[in-house]
Structure formats: structure tokens, C-alpha cells
């Protein structure tokens, strides 16, 4: 064999292998193996990361000059527009599902609860990062007020913004729900949360990627299982494009 032929064979072989990867990913059994990485990574991370280990917090001077908006920049639904026109005075956060005492909380209610402010890094699944200051009550405090039932395993966040006609939604488990940095932010960089960034209320779950940080939160439900919600994978992007539900990596 001449060296030229060998090189050609190598290049053709490489291209064939790449095409092979695409074909493999469509075989259900192979897809199952491919998707098993999520459980392995989540298991390893949950074993390595202390339950209460904090995401890094930064100095005021470390903040991004501009905190960009991503995804929906304005839900623009009649309901949302009416709330926004009234500066969210009529807004009520609903907390329900598997809780002892369902709650309906106004923004002033949320602002009178003990607050946490944190300067943290937002990491988009696409690769970019931005650092900003967030403020709001701890989700864990609200859940204690509502009283979680023993069978509750996840929290589902239903949002005002629509994607192909359905409300954006996300979910987290109780480890992240009761993490000390998990807050419902109504302020970004010491100002009211802008519409582009999820007004009036967005989730900050600081040890996961951006698509978990639900914006425009309308209601929070404690559930026993994610089955039957959306397509059952725990979030809009998880359902539609197969993003990992566990977004710690």
C-alpha cells in the first residue's frame, strides 16, 4: 500500500465513522446507552458535590457589563401583558400541588420574606457565561411555609411564556429546591427584574445551566413524578430537543 492510499483510507474511514455515529444514535438501544451518560454524570456529581456546597459568588466588580437576555424576551400573551401594564401589582405566585397549604403570594409578600442577594455566574448550555447580582426569597423558605407533603419529589415551574403554544416549564428535585442559593429572584443588579430577564420572578438554581433558570414564573407545583407533565422529561427543552434534565455539567 502506498502512503497516499493509506492516508485516503484514513480520511474516508474517519468520515465513515462520523456518519456511523449518527446512525448509531438513532438505534433505540444505542440511544439508551448514549443517554445513560446523564445518570452517570448526575450520580457522580451528586456523590462529589456536598448537598449544601455553594456555587462560587463573585465581587461586585466581577459582574458582566451587560447581562444578556436569552430565550423569550417578552412573553407577550394577553394575561402577561395585562400584568406587566399594571407593573405586576396584580401578580400572584401560586404554590400548589403536593403541599399542605397552597400559597398565593404577591410581590410585596415575596419582598417582606427574608432575602438572599448573591452575585453568581449564569452559564448557558451554548457556552457563554455572564455574572450578575440576584435578589429574592429562598425557595426553601417558601416551601417550608407551604409544607411539603412526604410524597413530593420534584418542583415544577410553569411560566408565562409560550413555546409552540405551550407554557415553558422546568423542574428541579428537592436537593436543589432546598439549596441555600436557590432563590426566586425579583431583582437583577439592584433593579427590578427587567421583562427581558424574566419579570416579575425567575428561578436561580446556581449549580445548573441557564435553561433550568425558569423565567416569568406563574406557578410552582410540588409533584411526585414528572411523568404526564409535558412529554414527561421534566422541562420544555428536555422534551423538545433532549437536553439533559440534570444540567450540572
Amino acid at each position, binding site marked *: *500500500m502506498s*502512503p497516499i492510499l*493509506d*492516508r485516503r483510507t*484514513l480520511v474516508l474511514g*474517519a*468520515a465513515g*465513522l*462520523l*456518519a456511523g*455515529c*449518527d446512525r448509531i*444514535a438513532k438505534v433505540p438501544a444505542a440511544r439508551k*446507552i*448514549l*443517554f*445513560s*451518560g*446523564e445518570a*452517570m*454524570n448526575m450520580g*457522580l*456529581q451528586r456523590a*462529589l*458535590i*456536598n448537598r449544601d*456546597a*455553594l*456555587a*462560587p459568588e*463573585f465581587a461586585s466588580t*466581577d459582574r*458582566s*457589563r*451587560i447581562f*444578556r437576555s436569552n430565550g423569550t424576551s417578552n412573553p407577550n400573551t394577553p394575561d402577561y401583558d395585562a400584568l406587566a401594564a399594571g407593573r405586576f401589582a396584580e401578580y400572584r405566585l401560586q404554590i400548589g400541588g403536593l403541599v399542605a397549604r397552597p400559597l398565593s403570594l404577591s410581590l410585596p409578600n415575596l419582598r417582606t420574606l427574608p432575602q438572599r442577594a448573591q452575585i453568581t*455566574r449564569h*452559564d*448557558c*448550555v*451554548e*457556552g*457563554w*457565561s*455572564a*455574572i450578575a447580582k440576584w435578589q429574592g426569597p429562598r425557595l426553601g423558605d417558601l416551601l417550608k411555609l407551604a409544607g411539603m407533603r412526604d410524597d413530593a419529589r420534584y418542583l415544577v415551574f410553569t411560566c408565562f411564556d409560550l413555546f409552540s403554544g405551550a407554557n415553558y416549564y422546568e423542574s428541579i428535585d428537592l436537593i436543589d429546591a432546598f439549596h441555600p442559593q436557590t432563590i426566586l429572584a425579583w431583582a437583577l443588579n439592584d433593579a427590578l427584574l427587567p421583562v427581558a430577564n424574566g419579570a416579575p420572578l425567575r428561578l436561580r438554581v*446556581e*449549580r*445548573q*445551566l441557564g435553561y433550568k433558570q425558569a423565567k416569568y414564573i406563574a406557578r410552582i407545583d410540588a409533584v411526585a413524578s414528572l411523568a404526564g407533565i409535558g412529554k414527561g422529561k421534566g422541562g420544555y*427543552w428536555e422534551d423538545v*430537543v*433532549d*437536553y*439533559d434534565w440534570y444540567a*450540572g*455539567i
Partner: protein
Amino acid sequence: MLRQPGSIFRHRLATRMWHWITVITIFILIGSGAGILNAHPHLYWGKYGANFDHPWFNPPRMPSWLTIPGHYNLAISRRWHLLFALVLGFALLGFMVLSLINRHFQRDLRVRAAELRPQHLWADVKAHLAFRFHDPARPGAYNTLQKFSYVATIFVLIPLMIGTGLTMSPGMDAAWPWLLELFGGRQSARSIHFLAASALVLFIVVHLTLVILAGVGNELRSMITGWWRVPEEGA
């Protein structure tokens, strides 16, 4: 066995297995990594970096014949990447432990002081330029430049890929905040990840070229069966 007169047993099972596992793994990681890079093809230095910030480099769009999958799908690129990242890390760990036990590292990869002398290095460069890759007195030993490239890949480049990869995980940053100190922030880690991947691609190109120049049949056989035919003197 393929044992023939003039052949030596060159690569142990642990070395051969790790080599081929890593071939497949790095191939998949480069393809899926190229797919992930297409999601935000801008690289920054520091703790943060997004569209309004100043990138130091905007890599060209990775062509579809290079990416896994062959069309833009960030979710599936990430599934491939994050599964095979585990294979890369644990295979390297296993190989390192076994190579310390079977003394592959101490015997074959340790750089001796005499090899660092300028005369020796210059002689090694000249030997490469003359396509002489083996010392007839010790045909099974790696030459010095070869050792350097293997040591750099095994002990620097791949660990750097793993370390910077972990730094990009918001979960790992909570567990091991020193990762951010080590690499100068998440976006710096992302940039170093790209640079180290580029260096790995360069290594692969040089490595394959030298395999072809040294005799692809003999080299491939030795990495599959372990047995390597000693080239005849002057050949």
C-alpha cells in the same frame, strides 16, 4: 502468535487497550466538541464572556463532516461528549495505574538526563529528518522526541482537557472551586479547552504521519498484537 524471528514484543495489553479506547474516545470527543463549539463560536478570557463581551478568537464554523452529529444538534453533541468524557477520564486513570504497576512509564517514558543534552536532541532531530526512528542498539525504545510527545499528551494535554472540561461544569465549580482559580475562570477554562484540543489534533496529525513513514503495517500490527518487527539495518 505472530512471533517471527526479528520481532520483539513492544506493547503490553494495557497499553494497546488504552490506545484503541482512546482513539475512539478522542475521535468522538473532537467531533461532538466541534458540534458544541458551533453553538457559541466565540472564545473569551476571564470569569465571564457573552455576546456583548470581547472575544479573543472567533473560531470558524465547524463543518458538518467534522461534527457529531452531522447536523447542528447541541443536545445530542452534548450527550456524546459528556458520556465519552467519562470514558476518557476513567480510561486514562486505569492506564496510569496499570502503567505504574507494569513499569511502562518508568521503563519506556522516563526521560533520562542524557537525552536532554543539546547534542543528543540535535542528533534526534537529524535522525527524524533522515526518517530513522529507531536506535539499532535499542530498537524497542522510543526515541527522545517521541517520548516528549507521548509524555506531553498523556501527562499534560489529556489531563488539561479533563481539568478544563470539569471547570466548565457549574456543579463541579461548587464542589471544587479551586478549579476556577487554577484556570482563571470558566471562560478561560473554555478557551484553554479549545487550545488543548487543537494541540491534540496537531499531535494526532504528526503521530499518524510518523506511523505512515515508519511503516504503517508494522506499526499497526504492534499496536494490535504487541509484536513489532525490527527494521533491518539501513532500511
